């Protein structure tokens, strides 16, 4: 799959997929990397080191700072894949230097798949289950 680079970098890892948007401010614990938003499909799961796949970001612009804090705490996802990247996640990925690609059909990716992300070229490939 080919999308658009938001922030570059190359990484491989396991996909963690949400079919709902993620609000990092108030929705993810920056100290543990755990999704805390009540009723969210990923509630209770840890995003650390995963290729985090979700349609789009939502919520307060302070969320960019939450992504940065995850990175500083060593709890950030290895990469972020969106269908449509909005400013909160885009700015968060840039200031935290997390590879990020959008314009990807996120519904085609399943949790647990092994992904190879070449964010410089905007390429996301599945390399195994």
């Amino acid at each position, binding site marked *: 799959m080919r999308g658009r680079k938001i922030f570059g970098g190359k990484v491989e890892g396991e996909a963690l997929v949400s079919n709902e948007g993620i609000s990092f401010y108030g929705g993810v614990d920056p100290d543990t990397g755990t999704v805390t938003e009540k009723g969210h499909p990923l509630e209770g799961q840890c995003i650390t080191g995963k290729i985090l796949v979700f349609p789009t970001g939502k919520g307060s612009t*302070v969320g960019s700072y939450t992504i940065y804090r995850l990175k500083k705490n060593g709890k950030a996802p290895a990469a972020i894949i969106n269908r449509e990247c909005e400013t909160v996640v885009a*700015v968060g990925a*840039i200031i935290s230097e997390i590879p990020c690609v959008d314009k990807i059909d996120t519904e085609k990716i399943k949790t647990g798949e092994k992904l190879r992300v070449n964010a410089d070229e905007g390429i996301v490939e599945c390399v195994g289950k």
Partner: protein
Amino acid sequence: MELTKEQKEMLEGKHGNAVRKSMSILVALGEIYGAKRLIPVTSVQISGVSYDNLGDAGLEFLDEMAKDGKTRVKTTLNPAGMDMENWEALGIDPEFARKQKLVIEAFEKMGVEATCTCTPYFIGNKPNFGDHIAWGESSAVTYANSVLGAKTNKEGGPSSIASALTGFTAEYGLHLDENRRAQFVAEVKANIENPMLFGALGNVVGKLAKGRIPLITGIEKASTEDLKSLSASIVTYGGAPLFHIDGITPNRTEVPEEKVIVSQEDIDNAVKEMNDTGDVEFIFLGCPHCSIEELERISELLRGKKVKKELWIGVARPIKKIADEKGYSEIIEQSGAKFACDTCHVVAPLKGRFHSIATNSAKGIFYGRGKNNFKTMFRTLEECIQKAVGE
């Protein structure tokens, strides 16, 4: 997106790490929103200043940007989480105060004027008609676009810093004239005559707008304070950060065909909806921060009286200094009311400290409920003072 030689060098890191990071933010936003180029800005207002909203994450980011980042244009700050001098009197936790001071120090190191207000246009950060600027703080963005006729998108914390440290923003959205035209007419057939009612009007029109730009007709006159209140409210309740008022605001627009009537009943219902039942324990005036005229009015109403409830008055420190010289501050403080310079009830850590608020600000009602879980009372400035002194 096409970059100039200077902009390319900034992106490559030739002007330091903070400028490189800033440029990568602006270029990415420009590409997401289809901008063709970056354009110079003349003024920046940075949002994301309260430690209550930033946390240690934001503070670390600011420290890193302050290592080699310096502002290239006039830059002012949004309210902080506390009065930077009088925080103890307002009951702020010392550890919170320590962290909030570190936030401000990082901004000062970058060369930002650490004035901490949502009304930068009252204290000398007042762009001219047609200027491209990069402002955060939705009420100030809306005032700048609508009342001053400057041009800005609603920036977040990191993107406003990026513009301050590079002097540029991406040319998209409200920087382009074709995106600044009115999209529907809101014809007002109601009595709108003070900042509180302009706030109620913002509630009604903002909800109707759903992100679109209104041309408001049927308003004969509006004071600076009225327009400040409308700017804060309309964007809080769902409007674009730009409105036109026929005969009052300076931007020219075509008249769209779609017309919606705003009736007296609509306004009355909005007022009713913003009022919960029961008494209040906390009164806040100055959302957005008070003008000197508002401080004069408050001092007239408080002269010789004592407040029986906690009354805070949010204001930019330079405006409070003018009030000191005019003698308003002494009258206000003798009543037992407290100045909350540099801050407000939206960004201060007040959750749990109070359970109910009275204010003349429709924006203040929204965040009092949403962020602090307050019961709310929506009244005029005069009625709020009456509440405070127990009349």
